[in-house]
């Protein structure tokens, strides 16, 4: 039997009246980096928000390490080891960098120390007293990832970490992701940048209209990246 950490089956969710996820099914194995690819509006971000419990109207099955996520109150989801790095990064403007960094409570042993974090993201070093939102976009992204790594979360939901960032910063983020992967963390990555995705991930799911419509191994996608083009409409 394979070691599935996350099993999602026929998952539906709604924002008020609008039905966003329409029966999505996929799984993630231990230690894997899996991407969700797809056009804007395909439901990738909603998938993350649904798993985290930010979106409350949901139905179907989502089980993490044997725990039913849909039956878990939203403030308990993090304690299962699920760490969320949202698309808009979620750096707090009323908090300093240091306060942002230690905001999420420790959920599991084995999280990174502040020292390790500064090694991984040297840009954050010496910026403790800066207001979080005064950092550059790339640095804010690093901070958003760093604060989750400190908590010991071992299953990370990363929503478009490279969006709007300069190529040199994207390389930094890619390097950091490589480190996390070698640490054995399980990661779901939402990405628009296919090249970045194929450099970081083991498997890829394609989403369209709230469903998972296709799956590729990284090798298959690297061999012929044009396979994805039809889905992304580029």
């Amino acid at each position: 039997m394979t070691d599935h950490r996350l099993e999602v089956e026929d998952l539906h969710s709604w924002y008020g009246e609008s039905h966003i996820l329409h029966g999505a099914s996929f799984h993630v194995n231990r230690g894997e980096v899996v991407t969700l690819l797809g056009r804007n509006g395909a439901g990738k971000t909603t998938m993350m928000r649904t798993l985290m419990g930010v979106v409350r109207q949901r139905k179907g099955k989502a089980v993490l390490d044997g725990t039913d996520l849909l039956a878990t109150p939203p403030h308990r989801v993090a304690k299962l080891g699920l760490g969320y790095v949202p698309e808009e990064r979620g750096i707090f403007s009323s908090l300093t960098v240091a306060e942002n960094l230690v905001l999420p409570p420790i959920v599991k042993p084995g999280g990174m120390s502040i020292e390790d974090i500064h090694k991984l993201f040297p840009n954050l070093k010496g910026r403790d007293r800066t207001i979080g939102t005064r950092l550059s976009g790339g640095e804010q992204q690093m901070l958003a990832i760093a604060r989750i790594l400190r908590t010991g979360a071992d299953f990370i939901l990363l929503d478009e970490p490279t969006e709007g960032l300069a190529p040199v910063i994207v390389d930094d983020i890619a390097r950091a992701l490589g480190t996390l992967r070698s640490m054995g963390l399980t990661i779901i990555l939402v990405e628009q940048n296919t090249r970045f995705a194929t450099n970081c991930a083991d498997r890829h799911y394609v989403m369209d209209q709230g469903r998972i419509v296709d799956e590729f191994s990284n090798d298959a996608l690297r061999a012929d990246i044009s396979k994805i083009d039809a889905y992304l409409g580029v």
Partner: protein
Amino acid sequence: MPDIFGVPMVVLLGQIMLGLINGSFYAVLSLGLAIIFGMLNVINFAHGALYMMGAFVTWILLSTVGINYWTALFVAPMIVGLFGIVIERLALRHLYKVDHLYSLLFTFGMALALEGLFRYIYGSAGKPYPVPEQLAGVFKLGFMILPVYRAWVIVAAVIVCVAVWLVIEKTRLGAWLRAATENPSLVTAFGINVPLMLTLTYGFCVGLAGFAGVLAAPIYQVSPGMGSNLIIVVFAVVVIGGLGSIGGSILTGLSLGVIEGLTKTFYPSASTIVIFVVMAIVLIIRPAGLFGREA
């Protein structure tokens, strides 16, 4: 003793001191209002009534079961705070998602109901509360005579305000509160029980109003109307300081008390409106308030 603009120094200092005492109440009450608004997005019109409740609980504790001032200083805020927690759980939290107006109307109604209840049971007349004997007497400062109890009120209010400010600005708990003000769903996703935090915040801030009520009991007459007289001024203080600014509401509270005191000295007939004049001027020049962040 010299005169300043024809006003004897003694009178002037006396009014400043009186202003500082009023300012202490403004500060403690507006602090709670500012935090409640910042965190819960609720304009808590019941704040004055809860302050009155604090004073009444203090009076009831002494007159029925003989619980003294010092015990009441802890017990009365707790009773008021618990009352607030029950109200938040039963009613207020259902109003967060709808327009501000609903929670404003609800808390306004609650204020009327509380006032009415106390008036029905205890009548409108003020009840005297004795100054605790440890705080009886006066300081003879040479330039003025300061009752010990009034000095205590200022000291206690400043200590409480500074302590609350430190907790919010300098601690991890404070960081959670500030973050939850900005983005509650993300803070929840980090594993923090935000609804519980909101309940406790309301309970605590309402407890602060109760604490102000205990401080007030020996100075002002304990009466059902004591809160509604004060609350309008306190709202003006919060607006001047900037809605949601914690430090701002403390400083504004104290300084407006002093401004009011000075106006009483130099132009007594303007003293009841001076705070509202200041509010109007501040709103024209800085609509977000003196310490508020521009939206």
